[in-house]
C-alpha cells in the first residue's frame, strides 16, 4: 500500500480548457492558436511573485557565472589572506578591528576572522561552487530518474518489480549518515589514504553520490505517471500502428511527462544546494580553501560567538536563494499545471 502522492501533474492537454476560464484579458482571436508551452508562459508572466523570484534566481546565477569578472573589478580574490598580510585589519586575537566583522569601503562584507580573507569574493566564489555542484547534480539526477522511471513504468513486469525494490531500499537508506561514512571511502578509492584529495575529484564524487541517492524519488513518481499513460488510447493507437518502443517513449510518453519532470527538478535544485552545504558543514563535502556556501557556514560556526557578522552573509544569501527558488518552483507548477492544488 502506498499513500497517494500529492497530485504531481495532470497531462498538458487539459490545460487549454482551464486556461480559457482564467483568461481575464480580451479573449484571443478565434483563429489564433497557442501551444501549451505558450499558454504556460503567458500564465507565468502574469504571476508577479513568480517573475520577481525568477529575477532573484537569475541574479544569483549571473553573479555566480560572472564571479571572476566581478572579483577583478572589485580588485580582490577569495584566496589572499588580506588580514594577515596587511597590518591593522585584524587585532591580536585575529578578529577584525573594525566593528561588524570589519565591514568597510575597502572590504564590503568584512574580513574573515583568523585567516583574514575577503568575505565578499569568498561568498561570490562560494555561490559559484555551490550552484555549479547543485546544477550538475540536478541535471544528472533528473536524467537518471527519467530513464529509470520511464523504463520501469513502460516495461512493467519483472523489470518494474526489480526497480521498485531498489527504489524502496534506496529510500530506506539513512542517506546523510551514509554520506559522511562513505565519502572518505570513495576518495580513498582514487587517492591513497594519506594524500590530499584534489578539488575536482571531491566535486565529482559529491555530484555522483548526490545523484546516486537522489534519482529514486523522481523515478518513482515518473513510473507512476507512465503506468497511467501506458493504458491511454493514444499510446494504444501508436502501438497498433506499429510504432517502435523508442518512438512511443520519446514522441508519445515524454511530451506528457515534461510537466512533472520540470516541477521535480525545480524542487530538487534548492534541496541540493542545501544538502551540499550541509555536507560541507559536516566536513565531508567541499573543504576549506575552496570557497563554498557550506564551507563559509562551517568557518562561521567556529567563531559565531565572537563574530556573528561573518555567518550572516552566507546564511542570509542562501535563505534568499532557496526561498526565491522555492517560490519560482511553485509558480512554474501553477503555470504548467493550473489545476493542481497547493
Amino acid at each position: 500500500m502506498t499513500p497517494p502522492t500529492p497530485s504531481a501533474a495532470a497531462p498538458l492537454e487539459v490545460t487549454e480548457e482551464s486556461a480559457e476560464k482564467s483568461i481575464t484579458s480580451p479573449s484571443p482571436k478565434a483563429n489564433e492558436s497557442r501551444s501549451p508551452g505558450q499558454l504556460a508562459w503567458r500564465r507565468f508572466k502574469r504571476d508577479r511573485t513568480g517573475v520577481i523570484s525568477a529575477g532573484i534566481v537569475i541574479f544569483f546565477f549571473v553573479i555566480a557565472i560572472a564571479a571572476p569578472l566581478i572579483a577583478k573589478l572589485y580588485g580582490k580574490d577569495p584566496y589572499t589572506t588580506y588580514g594577515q598580510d596587511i597590518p591593522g585589519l585584524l587585532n591580536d586575537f585575529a578578529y577584525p578591528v573594525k566593528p561588524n566583522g570589519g565591514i568597510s569601503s575597502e572590504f564590503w562584507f568584512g574580513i574573515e576572522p583568523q585567516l583574514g580573507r575577503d568575505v565578499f569574493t569568498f561568498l561570490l566564489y562560494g555561490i559559484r561552487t555551490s550552484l555549479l555542484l547543485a546544477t550538475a547534480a540536478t541535471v544528472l539526477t533528473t536524467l537518471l530518474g527519467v530513464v529509470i522511471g520511464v523504463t520501469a513504468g513502460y516495461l512493467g513486469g519483472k523489470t518494474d518489480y526489480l526497480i521498485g525494490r531498489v527504489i524502496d531500499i534506496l529510500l530506506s537508506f539513512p542517506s546523510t549518515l551514509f554520506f559522511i561514512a562513505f565519502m572518505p571511502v570513495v576518495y580513498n578509492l582514487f587517492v591513497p589514504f594519506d594524500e590530499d584529495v584534489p578539488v575536482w575529484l571531491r566535486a565529482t564524487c559529491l555530484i555522483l553520490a548526490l545523484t546516486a541517492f537522489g534519482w529514486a524519488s523522481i523515478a518513482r513518481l515518473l513510473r507512476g505517471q507512465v503506468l497511467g499513460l501506458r493504458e491511454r488510447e493514444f499510446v494504444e493507437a501508436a502501438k497498433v500502428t506499429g510504432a517502435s518502443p523508442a518512438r512511443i517513449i520519446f514522441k508519445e510518453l515524454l511530451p506528457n511527462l515534461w510537466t512533472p519532470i520540470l516541477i521535480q527538478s525545480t524542487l530538487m535544485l534548492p534541496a541540493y544546494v542545501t544538502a551540499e552545504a550541509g555536507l560541507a558543514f559536516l566536513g565531508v563535502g567541499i573543504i576549506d580553501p575552496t570557497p563554498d556556501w557550506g564551507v563559509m557556514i562551517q568557518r562561521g560556526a567556529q567563531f559565531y560567538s565572537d563574530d556573528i557578522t561573518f555567518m550572516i552573509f552566507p546564511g542570509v544569501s542562501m535563505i534568499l536563494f532557496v526561498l526565491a527558488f522555492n517560490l519560482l518552483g511553485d509558480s512554474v507548477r501553477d503555470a504548467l499545471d493550473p489545476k493542481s492544488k497547493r
Partner: protein
Amino acid sequence: MFRFLVRRVIGALVILLIISAVTFSLYYALPRDPARMACGKVCTPELLAQVRHNLGIADPLPVQYWHWLQGVFVGRDYGGLGNCNAPCLGFSFTNREPVLGTIMDRLPLTISLALGASVFFLIIGVGTGMIAAVKQGRAADKIASSFSLLGSSLQIYFVGYIAMYFLVQQLGLLEQPSYTPFTENPAKWAAGLLLPWLVLSIIFTANYTRMTRSQLVEQLSEDYVRTARAKGMSRRSVFFRFAWRGAMGPIVTIFGIDMGTLIGGAIITESVFSLQGLGRLALTAVDANDLPMLLGVTMVAAGAIVFANIIVDAVYALIDPRIRLA
C-alpha cells in the same frame, strides 16, 4: 491487520538484510586495506598485523559478513578483547567494547530530540494549517502560508547558530543546549533541549502547515462535507469528525518519514548544538575510522526509518478506513 504487520515486518527485515550487506561490502571492500585505515597515520608492520587480526579481515569478505550476521543472532566472542552478546552489531576496536552498548548510550538523547521537537512542530504545524484552511484566502491564511514558505527555506546549520547567538548568548533567554537524562531530572532535561526543539520545529513546521492546509482545503470541497452540512451538521463537527480524518493520512505519512530521518540522522542538528547523540557518534566514528561502529549506527538508523514506515502505514489504515491493508 495482523497479517499485514507480519508481512511488512518480514519485508522490512529483508530490506535491512540487504542494506547491511551493501553497507558491509562498501565499508569493508572499497578501501584497499581497512586495517591500514584503522591503524592510523603512524603504523608499524607489527601493529598492522595486530589490527588485521583483530578486525578479522584475514578471511574473505563473504565469510566476514557471515560472521557479522551470525553475531547479530547468536553473539560473538572477540578473544581477549571481550564478549559481545546476542544482538551483536559488531565490536568497536577503538572503544574496545560492543558497538550496541555505545549506541544504546546515545540513543536516548536522539530520541528525546526527535520526540520533543515533533510535539512542537506537530501542534504548531497542524494547528496553523487548520486555521489557514478554515480562514482560506483571508489574512490569517496568508500570514500562515508566508511563514511556512520562509520556514521551509531555513537551514538548521544557520538558524541554529543564530538562535544560539541571540537567544542564549546575547539575551540569555534559553539555556545552552545540553542533555540530562529524563529519569534524572525532567526539568533540566526539557530546559537543556528546549532550544534544539524550537529550532527543529521552526524548520519542520512549514511542511506540516502546507500539507495540512492543502489536504483540508481539498477535503472541505468534497461532496461528503456538503452532504453532511446539508443534513444540518454543524461546521465544527463536520470539520472535526470527517474532514480532519480524511486530511490526516498524508500528514501521518510525512510524520513517519520525518521521525525516521530524525532518529536516524539528526547529524547536523547534533553537531550544531554539540549534543552527543547518534549522529555525533557516527561523525566521531568516521574520524576514527571505526568501521564496526559506523556499520552499527547505519543499521540502527535504517531500522528506525523502515519501522517508522510500517507504523505509519498501520496508523494510516486506522485513521482512514478506506485504506485496506493487504
